[in-house]
Structures are given as C-alpha cells and as structure tokens.
C-alpha cells in the first residue's frame, strides 16, 4: 500500500435525469484526474443521475452491478484508478426498493458499495419517500488503504464515523449533495468527524442549481488533526487535488488519543437513551 495517496475531488454539476451525460462528465474527470496523478477520484452523491430526480428515481435506478457500473468500471480499469461515485440503486430482489448508494470501483472493477443509513426527510429533502435505509457500514481494504464510505447527512451522526474508524478505516469518504443554506454545518462537521476519530476525511459536494436549490461545493480533504489538506472552490466546478500521508495517522493518534480514551460502557447507555427519546 502506498504511504501517500493522491486524491482528486471531482466537484461537478450534474444534469438531472441524464445518466449518459453524467457518465460522460465523470469519464472526462477520471481522465483528467489520472493525468494529474490521482490514485483515487471522488464524485458527489447521486452523481450518476443528479440529486433531485424525484419520481424519475424509479426509472433511473439500476442494480449493482448494472450497465452504468459496467461503463464506469471500464474507465476505472483503463485508467487504473479508484473511483467513488453515487447512484440510485435498485434492489436485486424488489424493483420498487431503491437505495441511495455510494459505489467504490478499482482498477479491477467493482469493489463494493455503501447504502446511505441516514436519509434526510425534512426541509427540502424527501429521501425516505424514495429510498430504503441502508443497514451496513462496511469498510473496504484496498491497495490504497482501508476506506469507509458515507453519504451527506450521515455526517450529522458521529456514530457511523466512529464505527467506521473502529473497524479500521484510515480514510472516510463523504459524498454529498448539500444546498448552500447548510454549508455552515458541513464546514463544522467535516473538521469534527476527522478530528474526533483521528482519521482522514474526504468530502465531495455537488455544485450547480437543481429545482432552485443551489449546491455550494466546498469539497475538501481534512487531515486527522482537522487541518485542511486541500479545498475546492465554492459554487463552481473544480477538480481539487490533495495528498494523503497515512503516516500522519499514527502521529495524531498519540497527540489526540481519542481512540485510546474511548469509554465503551457509554455505548450501551447511548443505545438505551436513544430508544427512549
């Protein structure tokens, strides 16, 4: 495994409902990222289809693996690169069951997926109307490190990040479609989740306007000590590059020993109290 990992944050604007165009955009960005020396390129939440598909989600969703996965797998193999992107996934067992899913591809093809566990259904968000909750938070042991995947609203919940870190994640990726009115929350949470878990965090947000909602970009890589490794532009498309040095993990783990000082006995109480809320 390389000590240093070059990551490209592909902060793109998607065309709602147009998978063909979005795949073309992603392929171009993958090529550009590779030319810039990236080992890993990350796209925003639901980047295959755009975020606000609403009822179109049923016709746009695909099983995993499926045609769009195959198309992007070919590109990942050709460029010998790791890719993370988002898509509406159709269950292999029931056509009406969809998930908001993050996919990890590698130079050998599909590695794995994560189905979003926290689906926002408040304010302008209506994800529970369309998607089923995910039930697993896997980590993926790859040639470029141990990687955990999360999606957008998950970042409001420290539990999933803690779990991914305790499972051994070195890098947690958060793909997002966050509107501008919420930018302040993500600025705080990205730094907090990285620091409290002493882990690298790569956050990639959408840009552009969908249905009057303006996505703010601001993608970034946060180091385990909460410093910013790289940050993409606000409100504009960008391909920001950042280098992750896994050697930093050990240094920060000693200086900020949150993992050593964890109190597991609190977790049972946490569960009891949460069930009674």
């Amino acid at each position, binding site marked *: 495994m390389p000590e240093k990992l070059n990551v490209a944050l592909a902060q793109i604007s998607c065309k709602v*409902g*147009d998978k063909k165009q979005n795949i073309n955009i992603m392929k171009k960005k993958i090529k550009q990222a590779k030319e810039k020396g990236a080992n890993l390129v990350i796209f925003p939440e639901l980047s295959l289809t755009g975020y606000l*598909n609403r*009822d*179109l989600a049923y016709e746009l969703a695909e099983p995993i693996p499926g045609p769009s996965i195959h198309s992007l797998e070919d590109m990942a193999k050709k460029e010998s690169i790791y890719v993370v992107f988002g898509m509406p996934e159709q269950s292999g067992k029931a056509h009406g069951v969809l998930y908001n899913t993050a996919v990890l591809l590698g130079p050998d093809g599909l590695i794995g997926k994560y189905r979003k566990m926290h689906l926002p259904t408040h304010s302008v968000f209506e994800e529970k109307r369309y998607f089923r909750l995910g039930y697993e938070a896997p980590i993926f042991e790859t040639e470029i490190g141990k990687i955990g995947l999360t999606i957008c609203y998950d970042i409001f919940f420290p539990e999933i990040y803690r779990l991914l870190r305790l499972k051994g994640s070195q890098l947690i990726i958060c793909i997002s479609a966050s509107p501008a009115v919420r930018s302040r929350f993500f600025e705080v949470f990205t730094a907090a989740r990285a620091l409290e878990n002493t882990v690298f965090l790569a956050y990639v947000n959408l840009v552009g306007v*969908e249905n*009057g909602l303006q996505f703010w970009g601001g993608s970034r890589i946060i180091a385990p000590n909460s410093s910013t490794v790289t940050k993409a532009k606000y*409100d504009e498309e960008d391909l920001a590059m950042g280098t992750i040095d896994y050697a930093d993990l050990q240094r920060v783990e000693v200086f900020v020993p949150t993992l050593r000082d964890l109190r597991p006995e609190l977790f049972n109480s946490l569960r009891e109290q949460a069930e009674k809320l």
Partner: protein
Amino acid sequence: MTSDALKLDLPSVETRIKRFIKDYVEKCGAEGVVLGASGGLDSCTTAALASLSLGGHKVLGIAMPEEETYNTTNIQHAKLLAKKFGFDLQIVDISSTLKACFQSIPVYDATDKLSKGNVKARIRMVYLYYYANKLNRLVCGTSDKSETMMGYFTKWGDGAADISPIMDLYKTQVRQLALHVGVPAEIVAKPPSPGLWPSQLAEKELGIKYETLDLILFGLEHFMKPKEIAEELNLPIKLVEDVKRRWLSAEHKRRLPLTTKFGYRTVGKDFRLSHTPY
C-alpha cells in the same frame, strides 16, 4: 426576536439570485425574461437583479399603466431604472383593454373594487405571457415573501410567473437588497402599493407595518406559536393571530388547483418531477 433576524448576507444573496435566474433561463433555452415594471420596489429590484444576471438586453420590462391609477412618478421610476440597469422598457397603456373587458362582462359592477382590481392584475399577466411567448422568454415574477405569505396578490395575476427570484425574501429584506444592488433610494422609500385602485396603500390595507409583519411571518415560518411571537415582539395577541389566519387561508393561492384523487399519481399531490429534467 428583532430586525436582526432578517439581516441578509447581501453579496451572497445577490450572487445566488443572479445564478438562479441565469441557470434556469439557460436550462429552459429561453432568450431572456419579461417582467411587469410598475416602478415599485419589488419589480425594480427584480429587474435590476435580472439585468445584472442576464445582461439588460435579455430583460424586457413592461410598464402597464391604466387611467384610473395612472402614476407619473412610478413611470418615471421604471424609466430611471431601465436606464440605470440597461434593460428595455415598453410602456403599454391597458386602459382600452380594461374598458372592453369590463363592458363585455354582464355582471360587471364598477363599485366592486376588488373584483375590478384583480382584472387589472390578470390583464397585465396576459400581456406579459404574450410577450414571453412571442419572444421566447420567461415571465419573471416580482412577488416578495411578505405578500406571498399573506396572499396579498392576485391569484393568476401578479402571482403568475415562471420564476420568482425574490419570493423567499420578506419585504424588509428586499429593501436591504434593493439598496445593495443600486436601486435608487427614492424607489426603496416609496410606500408599497399594488396599484389596483386609486390611493391603494399596502400597509394601510394590511393594517400593519412591514417591519412588524415580517417579524411575525418570520416567527410563524420558524414554527413559533402566536403567543410566543406576541410576547417576544410585545404585540397584541389578536394582531398575530389575524396574521396567522390570513397566512393559513391564503394557501390556495400558492398551490395548483385542488382536486380529488383517483389516479396512481395526481398532479399537485403526489406527482413529483424535477423542474428541468433532461
């Protein structure tokens, strides 16, 4: 709760509104926008933002005076703004259209100010959509959040539009934004009027100053109970409850027409599509 609650990050709001207009016009493949240019605060602010967003050559303001409410100052203000922001302005007197319309209505009653006034707003809408169709443009609405929440507009009249860039800003916020983008102070300072009949003034008709109304609406927007709002603002509870009643009863003006459900997916209820798919 004070007026601080309604303070805006003005450069950010300006940028986002301009981006919103440009993005939607481009996605629709339209040549620009047309809007009603009354010379009032809301239409001047919207016209200014649209011009800054698209360029003045893609913005057409239509001033539609009529003899009963003819106001030279408002026409001058529309002209002043068009010159300052470089958009085209056409002045179309709708008096003869109104006269013909009223004469053709068997039950027309000249003393019914409201019914008559609403016709004026709807005739203006007809003109705007004619221009929009003819020129492949969008109709850009100029309603603000205060009047939208209070239902203080004509259904399918001035409320009819393809986009409404300032509809999520209260009147007092529009005033801040207007000054920020360079709308002349004399326009911002004018008492607002829908101009449906002579001497009509919004605050007099609503029975409340916008500075107070906006804070009540802000409280309701944030799920506060009338009692809490009244206590926080030191207002009579009846005033707050009256605003809430009006706020609730105007919902029909903000929605597609109500229907009863038969189908699998029903327009206005559970038929949900994005505004610009594909």
